[in-house]
């Protein structure tokens, strides 16, 4: 649905992105992840036709971004980082204006506005001036304008930036609800957001692609083993020996009060561990994944300069 090939953008001598190639599947939510100034906004601006690339190719919804710009713009809903609002307009008149410039037929304009208002729960502020509504509602209006023409692809640049925790949860729920009917690409540097909302990520740093894929795929490609941290009510050397005898266990380490157990990705030993605990009447206080979490993954990729 979104595909880039060797995409490069230079501002004079400054290389904003270089040889960026990635693919986002239809109906999924994909995160564009990277530190500040990594090139996320530039990438999104190229995909939306706001900026031309210096070289390379990009396609959205099957249309070439450079050669079929109008079809691409018709297929995309875009929320820039600075929500593009006219404070002197009411929410309704603003959405009506966006529907017109997105070429929604006049006969369907009202229905399109109603639908966008309903999806983004803007009913309470529908008739109010944009300058008088809260930051959270403004963000919703921004998302509503991106949805107004029911585009196949939605691109959201930092959609939760500057919101309070309750608003962040609401906006994330809203984004999750778009999955399936729309393909969504969102940029963020909030890792929890990626974990909660996204099916996969494209990680870029200093304009270069560091990794891309689903979170599971990335975790697998960056660490050889899967595993768990196990915290038991009580255990002794005998219990440790029992765990060591679980077939296909690759390693067992004691880390403080926890036991770290590891196995290869294709051989999940969680059922065997639970079965052993039940048989030996061992009380589990906690069991959590020891596979690389998104924070570790991100830091390894970005800080370590590791490329997939």
């Amino acid at each position, binding site marked *: 649905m979104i595909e880039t090939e060797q995409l490069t953008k230079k*501002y004079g001598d400054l290389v904003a992105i270089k040889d960026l190639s990635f693919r986002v599947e239809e109906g999924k939510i994909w995160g564009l992840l990277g530190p500040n100034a990594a090139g996320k906004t530039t990438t999104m*601006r190229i995909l*939306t*036709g*706001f*900026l*031309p690339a210096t070289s390379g190719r990009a396609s959205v919804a099957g249309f070439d971004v450079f050669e079929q710009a*109008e079809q691409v*713009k*018709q297929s*995309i809903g*875009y929320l*820039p980082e*600075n*929500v*593009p*609002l*006219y*404070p*002197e*307009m009411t929410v309704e*008149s603003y959405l009506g*204006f*966006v529907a*017109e*410039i*997105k*070429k929604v037929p006049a006969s369907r304009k009202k229905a399109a506005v109603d639908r966008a208002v309903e999806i983004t729960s803007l009913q309470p502020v529908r008739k109010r001036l944009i300058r008088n509504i809260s930051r959270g509602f403004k963000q919703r209006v921004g998302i509503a*304008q991106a949805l107004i023409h029911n585009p196949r692809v939605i691109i959201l640049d930092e959609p939760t930036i500057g919101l309070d925790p309750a608003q962040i949860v609401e906006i994330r729920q809203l984004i999750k609800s778009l999955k399936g009917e729309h393909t969504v690409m969102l940029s963020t540097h909030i890792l929890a957001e990626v974990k909660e909302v996204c099916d996969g990520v494209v990680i870029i740093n200093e304009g270069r692609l560091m990794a891309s894929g689903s979170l599971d795929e990335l975790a697998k490609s960056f660490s050889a083993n899967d595993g768990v941290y196990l915290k038991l009510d009580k255990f002794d050397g005998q219990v440790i020996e029992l765990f060591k005898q679980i077939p296909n266990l690759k390693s067992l380490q004691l880390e403080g009060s926890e036991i770290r157990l590891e196995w290869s990705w294709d051989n999940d030993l969680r059922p065997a561990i639970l079965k052993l605990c039940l048989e030996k009447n061992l009380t589990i206080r906690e069991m959590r994944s020891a596979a690389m979490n998104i924070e570790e993954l991100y830091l390894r990729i970005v800080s370590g300069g590791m490329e997939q």
Partner: protein
Amino acid sequence: MKAIWSIAKKELMSYFTSPIAYIVISIFTLLSGFFFYSLVWWFNTQAIQMAQNPYYFQQVNINQMVFAPLFHNLSIIMLLMLPIVSMRLFSEEKKMGTEELLFTSPVSVVQIILGKYLAALIVLLAMLGLSAIPTIFTFIHGNPEPVPYLLGYLGLFLLGGAFLGLGIFWSSLTENQIVSAVLTFGTLLLFWVLSWAAYSAHGLWRDVLNYLSFFEHFDGMTKGILDTSDLVYYLSIAFFGLFLTHSVIQFRRWR
């Protein structure tokens, strides 16, 4: 055309939901009313004096004595007011970040520019339309020649169109509305005073400077003379401004 009208409607809404359009139109109407009243008062005084001499009485002409100076005065007020009308057209979009919405929509840059320009022209029409209301009474109580009168207003509209064309160009270059207005005002003033420079120039230079001056082309129209070269001049200046605006926007995005 539909997209152009959508942009124009939005711009008009912005003009009339802020005080700018109301202030500009009100002051323009007020000043034009004042000048008109003063000129009619002066005309009456002169006419009474001239009526005592049959030769001079034949020289009494309301078009030359009231409307021609009125149009000149209005053109000066427009020079001061229209930079305020054009200053926000692109500057505000840049400042508010809304240009990203416009330029990622399936409307062309040309349609966006024309939509904004059309809205500014409608504001200009409102200014001229309101200023014309008091002058209609001269047709009820007197018999001015309608052709020079209408040509004078056409001249003001074309002149205003040229001013706005240059104004929209400056607003595309900066996100600061004041800077945009000052640059527009400076440019208009420069074009205006070219005829002064022409007095001290000779030969070809004199002709070139005279041709470029706003004043020289406007003068004929207030006397009821419609010259194609004047029309071409004003339309060329407006087109030049819009063309430069398009170039600036494309250059900024493609650099």
